C-alpha cells in the first residue's frame, strides 16, 4: 500500500519533470537558448518539485496518523477496562484482528467480535488507501498544473528551485540535532516514568540489582530492586581491564610506528592493525566465549584458581584487543603532530632516540594521548556484544575480575530482548540505564574532543 502510494508520487514527479522540460523547449522554438532565463532542466525540476514536496508531506502524515486512527476506530467497539494493562490488551486484540484480516488462522478459533472487527478493519484499510491515492492524485496534479502555468521565457525558476534545494540541505543538516533530541527525549520520557516508580537515589546508589518484578500481585519475592551500583562497578572493572590491555600495547605500537618504523613497515602494519577495529564485535564476543574464557578457566584450574566460565577478565582482555587500534592510531596522529624541531633539539643535546621519546615527545603529546585514551574508555563503556557473550548477566558486587560480572549495556540487552511488559519498572529501567550510558559517554567524548583539539593548536 505504502509502496503503491510512493510509486504514484514518483510517477507524477517523473511526469512533471518531463513536461516541464518539454515545455521549456517548446517556448524556445526558433529562439536562441540564451533568451531563456533558466535552463530547461530547471523548468523540469520546478514542476517536479511541485509534485514531490506535497506528495511527501501527505504520505508522511498518512504513515504517521493512519494506523492510530484505524486502531481507535476499530477499538471503539471493544470494551477495554482502563488500567495499567490497557495498552497491552489493545495490542493483543489488534494483533488478532490483523491476523484474521490478513486471512490467517488463530489458535483456538476466532470470536465473533474479532471477525466483525477484522472485516471493519479491512474496509477501513481500503477506504483509507483509496482516499490517500485519490487525494495524492488530485493535490499533486493540481499543484503541477499550477506550476506549469507559471513557466515562461522570463520566469525565474532556477532561483526558486535553488531556494527549495537549499531548504532541503538545511533540513537534512538539522537532522543530526533532531536525532540527538530524539535520543534525549525518548530516553528521558521513559526514564521519568521509571523514576516515578523508583526514586533516583535508589537507582544511583542502591547496591542490589534484581529487576524481576511480580507479574501477579500475590507473587512472592518479585518486588524487584533497581540499585545500579553493581552494574556501574562491573562496567568499570571490565573497562579497566580493557584499558590495561589496550593502553600500553596501543601506545607502544604508536610510538614504534611513528618513530622507529620504516615507511614500508608502517604502510603494512598500520592497515593490518586497523583490521582489528573493523572486526564486528559479535565476532570478538564469540572468540571470547569460544577460546579465551575456556583458556582462562583451564589455566586457572591448573594453578589452583577458580575462574568462572564467564569472567570479567575474558571480556576485558578481548575488549582490550578490540580497542588497541583506537589507541594506536589516535596516539599516532598526536605523536606525529609534535614538531620535528623538538626532536632535533633533543638530538642536538646528545639524547638517544628512546630518551627523546620518553622525555620530550611523550610529555609534549601527553594531553593528546589522554584525549585518545578517554575516547577509548568511552568506546569500552558502550561496548555491548563482547560482554553479553563473555561476561555473564549476574549482577554481583565484587572486586574479583575472575568472577562473572555484568555491565550497563548487558542489562539493557537482557531487559529488552524477548517478551516485554510495557510500562513495567523492569522495561523502563533499561531506558534509565541508557540515559546514564548516554550521559557518561557524552561527557567523556566532549572532554576528549576538547582536549585533543586544544592540544593540536598549540604548535601551529
Amino acid at each position, binding site marked *: 500500500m505504502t509502496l503503491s502510494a510512493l510509486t504514484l508520487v514518483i510517477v507524477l514527479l517523473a511526469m512533471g519533470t518531463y513536461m516541464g522540460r518539454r515545455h521549456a523547449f517548446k517556448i524556445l522554438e526558433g529562439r536562441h537558448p540564451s533568451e531563456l532565463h533558466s535552463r530547461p532542466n530547471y523548468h523540469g525540476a520546478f514542476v517536479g518539485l511541485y509534485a514531490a514536496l506535497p506528495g511527501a508531506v501527505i504520505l508522511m502524515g498518512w*504513515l504517521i496518523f493512519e494506523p492510530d486512527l484505524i486502531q481507535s476506530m476499530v477499538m471503539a467497539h471493544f470494551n477495554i477496562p482502563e488500567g495499567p494493562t490497557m495498552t497491552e490488551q489493545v495490542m493483543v486484540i489488534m494483533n488478532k484482528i490483523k491476523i484474521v484480516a490478513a486471512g490467517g488462522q488463530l489458535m483456538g478459533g476466532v470470536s465473533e467480535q474479532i471477525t466483525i472487527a477484522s472485516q471493519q478493519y479491512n474496509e477501513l484499510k481500503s477506504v483509507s488507501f483509496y482516499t490517500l491515492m485519490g487525494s495524492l492524485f488530485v493535490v499533486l496534479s493540481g499543484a503541477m498544473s499550477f506550476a506549469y502555468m507559471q513557466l515562461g521565457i522570463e520566469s525565474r525558476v532556477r532561483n526558486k528551485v*535553488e531556494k527549495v*534545494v*537549499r531548504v*532541503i*540541505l538545511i533540513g*537534512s*543538516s*538539522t*537532522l*543530526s*540535532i533532531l*536525532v*540527538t533530541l530524539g*535520543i534525549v527525549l*525518548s*530516553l528521558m*520520557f521513559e526514564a521519568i516514568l521509571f523514576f516515578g516508580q523508583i526514586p533516583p537515589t535508589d537507582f544511583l546508589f542502591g547496591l542490589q540489582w534484581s529487576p524481576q518484578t511480580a507479574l501477579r500481585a500475590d507473587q512472592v519475592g518479585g518486588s524487584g530492586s533497581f540499585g545500579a551500583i553493581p552494574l556501574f562497578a562491573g562496567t568499570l572493572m571490565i573497562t579497566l581491564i580493557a584499558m590495561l590491555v589496550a593502553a600500553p*600495547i*596501543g601506545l*607502544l*605500537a604508536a610510538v*614504534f610506528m611513528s618513530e622507529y618504523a620504516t615507511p614500508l613497515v608502517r604502510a603494512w*602494519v598500520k592497515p*593490518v*592493525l586497523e583490521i582489528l577495529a*573493523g*572486526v*564486528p*564485535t*559479535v*565476532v570478538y*564476543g*564469540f*572468540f571470547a*566465549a*569460544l577460546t579465551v574464557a575456556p583458556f582462562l578457566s583451564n589455566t586457572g584450574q591448573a594453578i589452583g584458581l577458580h575462574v568462572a566460565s564467564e569472567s570479567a577478565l575474558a571480556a576485558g582482555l578481548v575488549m582490550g*584487543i578490540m580497542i588497541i587500534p583506537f589507541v594506536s592510531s589516535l596516539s599516532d596522529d598526536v605523536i606525529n603532530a609534535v614538531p620535528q624541531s623538538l626532536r632535533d633539539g633533543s638530538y642536538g643535546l646528545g639524547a*638517544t*632516540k*628512546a*630518551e627523546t621519546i620518553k622525555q620530550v615527545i611523550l610529555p609534549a603529546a601527553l594531553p593528546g594521548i589522554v584525549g585518545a585514551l578517554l575516547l577509548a574508555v*568511552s568506546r569500552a563503556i*558502550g*561496548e*555491548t*556484544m563482547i560482554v553479553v*557473550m563473555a561476561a555473564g548477566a549476574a549482577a554481583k558486587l565484587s572486586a574479583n575480575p575472575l568472577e562473572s560480572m555484568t555491565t550497563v*549495556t548487558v542489562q*539493557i*540487552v537482557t531487559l*529488552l*530482548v524477548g517478551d516485554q511488559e510495557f510500562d513495567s519498572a523492569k522495561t523502563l529501567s533499561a*531506558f534509565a540505564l*541508557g540515559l546514564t*550510558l*548516554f550521559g557518561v*559517554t557524552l561527557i567523556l567524548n*566532549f572532554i576528549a*574532543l576538547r582536549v585533543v583539539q586544544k592540544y593540536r593548536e598549540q604548535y601551529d
Partner: protein
Amino acid sequence: MTEHANTSFTNPTALSLLKKRRASETRFRLLGISGIVVALAALVILLTTMLGNGLTAFQQTQIKLKIHFDEQVIDPEGKRDPKVLSHADYRKLYTNGLYALFPDVKSRRDKSELRKTLISSSAQYALRDVVLEQPELVGTTRELWLVASDDVDMYLKGYFTKDVPESDRPIKDITISWIEQLQHEGRIDKKFNRDFFTNGSSQDPEQAGILGALVGSGLTLLVTFLASFPVGLATAVYLEEFAPKNGWTDLIEVNINNLAAVPSIVFGLLGLAVFLNVMHMPRSAPVVGGLTLALMTLPTIIIATRAALKAVPPSLRDAARGLGASPLQVVLHHVVPLAMPGILTGTIIGMAQALGETAPLLMIGMVAFLVDIPHSATDAATVMPVQIYLWADSAERGFVEKTAAATLVLLGFLVLMNLLAVLLRKKFERRW
C-alpha cells in the same frame, strides 16, 4: 681534572654509561616491537581460531543409500497426485534402506538407534523434493547421497573420539561400528555443504544455513544506504559549501562529532522508542533495522564527505563561478562529482560498520528464530551478526562450526567492502 674526565667520552665510567644508554635504547625499541607483535598475534589467533573452527562447516557428511521408492509407501493409490506425494512418509524410505544395509540389526532398541542416529531428519524432505521433481522415480530403486546426522558429522570431523567413555559422548559405540562399516564400503563421504548457503536457520545444526541472514543483511543495508546516503551527502554539502559560520552550524558540527561516538546500543533504544513504540512500524523488520543503522552511520558518512569536499581546490569553484554557474550548479556539477570517490569510500566504510553491528538490532527484535527467508523489507528477518549471536548461544556442538563459518562469511564480506574502498581511493586519488 676528575670533573673533566667524567664528561669525556673516552673515560671508562662514561663509556659504561653510554653502554647503558644504548642498552636502554634497544630495550625500548624491542618494547615497541613487542607491542606491535602482541597486537598482530591477537589478530592472527582470532583469525586462525575462526578458520580452524569454521572451515569444516563448508563440508557436510553424506551417506550413500540404496533407496527403493516404494509405491506402497508413498503413493498407494498410484495417481501421482502431488498432494499425496508431498505428504507421504519419506522417512520410511531411507529407514528401509538402512535396514537393508545392516541386516544384522535385529533388536528393537538397535533398530530405533539405527533409524535415529545416522541420517538427518532433513533427508525426508530431500527425498520428497526428488520425487516431486521426478514422479517417474516411484517404483524404482536408486543409489542416493543423503545428509548424515549432526553427531555423525561431528564424529567424522574428529570432534568426538572413541577414547572418551561412551556415556560422555553423544554417539554410541554401536553407531561408531556402523559408521566404520559404511566407511569400509565407501558409502560415507564428506561433500561440499550446499545447504549452508541455501537454507534458512534451523534447530538442527546439519540443516542450518545462512541464506536467510544474508538476505536480511542485504535488505537492511539497502534501507540503511537509501536513508543515510542522501541525507549525509546533503548535510555535508550544506555544512561545507553553503553554511554561514555561526552558532547554529557550530552546534550542528559538535553534534555530529558527538553522535559519531554515541554507543550503538543507545541508537537501538532510540529505534525501539521512536520507530516501534511511537510509529508502530513492524517489529523485527529490515526497515526498522535499516533506519536505526542509518542514524548510526550518518555521522561517519557526513565526516568523510566533508573531508572529500574540502579536498577539492577552491580554484575549481572560482572558475565555475566565473563562467556564470550558480552556487548550486558549482557544487552539483563540479565539486560533488570530483569528490565522489572520497564520498563513496566513506560511505562504504560506514556500510561495513553497519553490516557488522549487532546490539541496536537486538533492541528492535531482530533476534527472532526464523526459518523462512525474508522477501521484503517489512518481513521479519535477521542479519548475519545476529545470526552469529544466536548460533553462538546454541548448545549443540555442530553449531560451533556453523557459527565460526558464518563469521568467516561475514568477515569475507567486510574484507571485500574494505578492499573496494581501498581500490576506489587508489584509482581515483588525485593531487591538485
